[in-house]
């Protein structure tokens, strides 16, 4: 089965690329923005220039190798310099390069002009998820990898968008200039969506800007492009481009949902409710480091199951989750999780995998603490 796959792959390739494969499987996507189209055409232009030079140069080389074989009695000539020829083959590439630099400069200038944006989105990289915040709209959320762990470990069939799917995509309106402000909480990340031709580093403590104007509605997938630690490969970016009206509806729904969630804070939650919600939050946020069974990956990521410090010091446990630990991969979840989620995940961690403290943390207490 595996061998058959190999042969099929080889067959596909050698029977001519593009036969079974789509262009997007082996070439840069044309993309869905004006800039991405320009980048694609630059890419193809320089590619064909290289191909032409390659054919000429390698042609001359293989001709010489074949024609002047020692075994065929070739006698070596004596020449070893020719100024005119050398000047020509120095000057000619120079001209080609200038010809290449002109359109590249024009495209680059367009990419750098982020002025007059219709919408500002702050993108924050965090080990190992993206946080999006719509500036001036009071909407912000975290976007986590949605591929189940079982697919990664091979226990279940891999889905179509394996590793390129998130729980909450970044939703953007089409036809609008969106300015992206990029930064990071811990290490350097890089936000990349090939179809938008946007790749920009998110540097902790510094802010970069980029922009995008998407022409067609659709779902565009990318990944973190800068090595950012253990789960660098599990940090996808998904952008959903929708029409303006749909975007407005979505934004309103987001705000309403946030308000509803806020209401949930005030009521008393049962242990079962918190455990259920907590398991869900733990699975999408915490399990990548502390593992689904709470065993962690010491020394970088401590175990939570049977962790005596955690069991003995509920205050410190809470503080760690809310405020993070400086200089480690443990981020502050104060801004990325809401009080219900924090209360649920703490309750879960204090009662799962044999940590049977029986302690329940109520969302209302967390909310009080956060608004202190």
């Amino acid at each position: 089965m595996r061998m058959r796959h190999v042969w099929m792959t080889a067959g596909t390739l050698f029977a001519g690329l593009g036969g079974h494969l789509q262009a997007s499987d082996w070439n840069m996507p044309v993309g869905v923005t004006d800039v991405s189209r320009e980048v694609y055409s630059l890419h193809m232009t320089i590619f064909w220039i290289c191909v032409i030079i390659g054919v000429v140069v390698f042609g001359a080389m293989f001709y010489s190798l074949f024609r002047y074989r020692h075994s065929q009695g070739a006698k070596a000539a004596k020449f070893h310099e020719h100024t005119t020829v050398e000047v020509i083959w120095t000057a000619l590439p120079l001209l080609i390069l200038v010809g290449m630099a002109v359109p590249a400069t024009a495209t680059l200038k367009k990419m750098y002009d982020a002025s007059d944006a219709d919408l500002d989105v702050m993108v924050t990289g965090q080990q190992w998820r993206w946080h999006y915040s719509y500036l001036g709209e009071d909407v912000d959320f975290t976007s986590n990898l949605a591929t189940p762990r079982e697919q990664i470990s091979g226990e279940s069939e891999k889905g179509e968008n394996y590793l390129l799917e998130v729980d909450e995509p970044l939703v953007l309106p089409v036809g609008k200039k969106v300015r992206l402000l990029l930064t990071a909480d811990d290490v350097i990340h890089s936000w990349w969506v090939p179809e938008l031709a946007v790749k920009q580093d998110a540097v902790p403590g510094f802010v970069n800007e980029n922009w995008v104007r998407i022409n067609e509605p659709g779902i565009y997938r990318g990944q973190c492009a800068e090595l950012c630690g253990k789960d660098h490969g599990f940090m996808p970016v998904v952008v959903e481009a929708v029409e303006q009206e749909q975007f407005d509806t979505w934004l309103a729904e987001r705000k309403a949902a946030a308000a509803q969630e806020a209401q949930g804070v005030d009521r008393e939650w049962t242990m079962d409710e918190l455990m259920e919600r907590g398991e869900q939050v733990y699975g999408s946020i915490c399990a990548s480091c502390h593992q689904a069974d709470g065993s962690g990956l010491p020394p970088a990521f401590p175990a939570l199951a049977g962790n005596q410090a955690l069991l003995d010091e509920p205050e410190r446990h809470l503080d760690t989750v809310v405020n993070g630990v400086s200089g480690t991969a443990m981020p502050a979840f104060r801004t990325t999780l809401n009080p219900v989620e924090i209360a649920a995940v703490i309750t879960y961690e204090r009662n799962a995998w044999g940590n049977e403290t029986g302690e329940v943390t109520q969302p209302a207490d967390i909310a009080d603490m956060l608004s202190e």
Partner: protein
Amino acid sequence: MWKTIKSVLAAFFGVQRESRRQEDFTTGKASSFIVVGILMGVLFVVILIVIATLAAG
């Protein structure tokens, strides 16, 4: 002086006639080549910066 500049230019360009090279290596002074070389290197960087600034502007 002009000869030195021309030789350094040829070096930057990477093409030189064998006879001129011979001449440089027999009659030229190393220090003058180094000084002219460094100055032209700086000039090269400045020219490139100016071009980049104009292109960006």
